[in-house]
């Protein structure tokens, strides 16, 4: 136990000081008004205490000027808080383009994480300092919430959809990871740690944890064993089913005249409920894979589909995975040279 009581948790992400600054501003305003009101109340209570039992003070008319004053001033102060908070929030919810992606699956009562390079972790997340990390999260059962106080950020992990959370660690160390949404019996045991490492140490850690396949490679195997290739082509080039290579992130026209962006929720829906949104020009012939693929496997299929870029190009986030499969020309990025 420290000898003094801390007032703020450790600051370990690029959000930390921004949230802290706003927090101190809010605390200052609160303290000011709390002291102002209590000070005035205490002063009046002493100054205007009842001196004789039957005295009646003169009534006082209200004042529109005063009312306007104490409506407008708090409103302006509140708006500064709103604007400031909204600005940081917007930043927190706009995922950066060039982040390291980590897949997170929450279940009662553990966190299962997998790096794009294949390393699996349970209740622990190793990340390099100074890099933007984007978590793509879903839950196998109830709603959880991924909360790292030192990073000043959290997000719900909801079954049936993907939520994202990003942060940029700024200080090496080990930080608490909490589940912040009540999830049943062992809710308070669904904790872990986020370990922020220097890039070199992180590389060492990565290389010491080889052996498991990258999600994209595992997804490629699933793609073959589930028979996806028979309609979508061996490398996602399409056939009886729509082309997958290069489709991720783009808009695609639908049979019913609308269009949809090919993103994580859409791919998930199309695997579990293929009839929901059919790509224009194709028949409703795909069977559902509901109950046949787990959340983990969905994530792997998704990683594989993302890695299938038209013309053999790959996104940086999944750079390492196609190195073993479809695009051997791709060089691994410097921070993640595995093997």
């Amino acid at each position, binding site marked *: 136990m420290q000898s003094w009581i801390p007032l703020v948790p450790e600051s370990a992400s690029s959000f930390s000081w921004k949230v802290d600054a706003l927090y101190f501003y809010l605390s200052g305003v609160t303290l000011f008004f709390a002291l102002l009101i209590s000070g005035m109340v205490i002063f009046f209570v002493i100054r205007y205490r009842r001196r004789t039992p039957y005295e009646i003070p003169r009534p006082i008319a209200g004042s529109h000027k005063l009312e306007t004053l104490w409506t407008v001033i708090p409103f302006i102060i509140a708006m500064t808080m709103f604007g400031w908070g909204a600005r940081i929030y917007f930043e927190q919810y706009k995922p950066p383009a060039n982040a390291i992606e980590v897949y997170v699956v929450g279940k009662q009562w553990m966190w299962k994480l997998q790096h794009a390079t294949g390393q699996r972790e349970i209740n622990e997340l190793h990340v390099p300092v100074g890099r933007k990390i984007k978590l793509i999260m879903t839950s196998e059962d109830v709603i959880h919430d991924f909360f790292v106080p030192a990073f000043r950020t959290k997000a719900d992990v909801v079954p049936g959809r993907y939520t994202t959370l990003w942060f940029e660690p700024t200080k090496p160390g080990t930080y608490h990871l909490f589940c912040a949404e009540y999830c049943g019996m062992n809710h308070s045991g669904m904790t872990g740690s986020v370990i922020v490492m220097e890039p070199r140490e992180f590389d060492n850690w990565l290389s010491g944890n080889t052996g498991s396949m990258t999600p994209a490679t595992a997804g490629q195997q699933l793609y073959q064993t589930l028979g996806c290739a028979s309609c979508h082509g061996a490398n996602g080039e399409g056939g009886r089913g729509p082309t997958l290579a290069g489709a991720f992130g783009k808009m695609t026209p639908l*049979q*019913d005249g609308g269009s949809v962006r090919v993103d994580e929720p859409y791919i998930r829906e199309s695997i579990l*409920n293929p*009839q*929901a*949104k*059919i790509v224009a020009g194709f028949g*409703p012939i795909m069977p*559902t894979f509901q109950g046949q693929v787990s959340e983990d496997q969905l994530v792997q299929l998704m990683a594989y589909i993302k890695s299938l870029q038209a013309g053999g190009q790959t996104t940086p986030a999944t750079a390492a995975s196609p190195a073993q499969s479809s695009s051997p020309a791709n060089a691994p990025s410097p921070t993640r040279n595995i093997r």
Partner: protein
Amino acid sequence: MATEATAPEIHGHRSLQHHFENMEQQREAGTLGMWVFLVTEIMFFGGMFLAYTLYRSLYPAAFASASNHLDITLGAVNTGVLILSSFTMAMAVYFTQIGKRRPQVLCLLLTLLLGLTFLGIKAVEYHDKYEDRLIPGRLIPGHSFNPQVQQEGQPVDPHKLHLLPGATVEKVEMFYWIYFAMTGMHALHMIIGAGLLTFLLIFSLKGRFDPEYHSPVEVIGLYWHFVDIVWIFLFPLLYLLGRHLEHG
């Protein structure tokens, strides 16, 4: 109560409760009370309308397929029956206000019968859905949701569910759950309404209402109209929307 009948007058009317100053105040309180109650009813149904709107926009094809399987004829007849009952209810209020007892009793009786007709037709519809195994989940134990799906090229069977492109049985089940929740809640209100009408009928036969004291008829009339209006929203939302996708 009827034995101590006295000539109706504004003050000291036999139906004036002790805590009201006069009949006017009592009537006002009763009517306002019912209006306030109807506001709560709107909010009560509102939750289900919200769920309906959300899932209709999320799963348009499944909702259209499921909606097409509803019996539009029975639905339309029921709509007519309810509108007619609203008319007879309004007439019952009118005849109470001008103090004509025989047409008042007749109109109340007609309203009650029309209400019961509605419930009868609804029961037939529910039974059809039961036969087609369209009762969602385990609402009826041992008879889970399991409709037969019309396959392409097979002869058309009205008991089979025809799925539009993009529709799944699972989302059809969602529609039927919302359908049963909304129409079931509506039917429950109809049953309560029928009970209230029975009570009115008995009191009307006893001659309890007169031009000075007619607020029970008026207040229950308001309730009855409200229940009708809910149906006026339910019918197009559940039966009509999306029908063109099948037939158009």
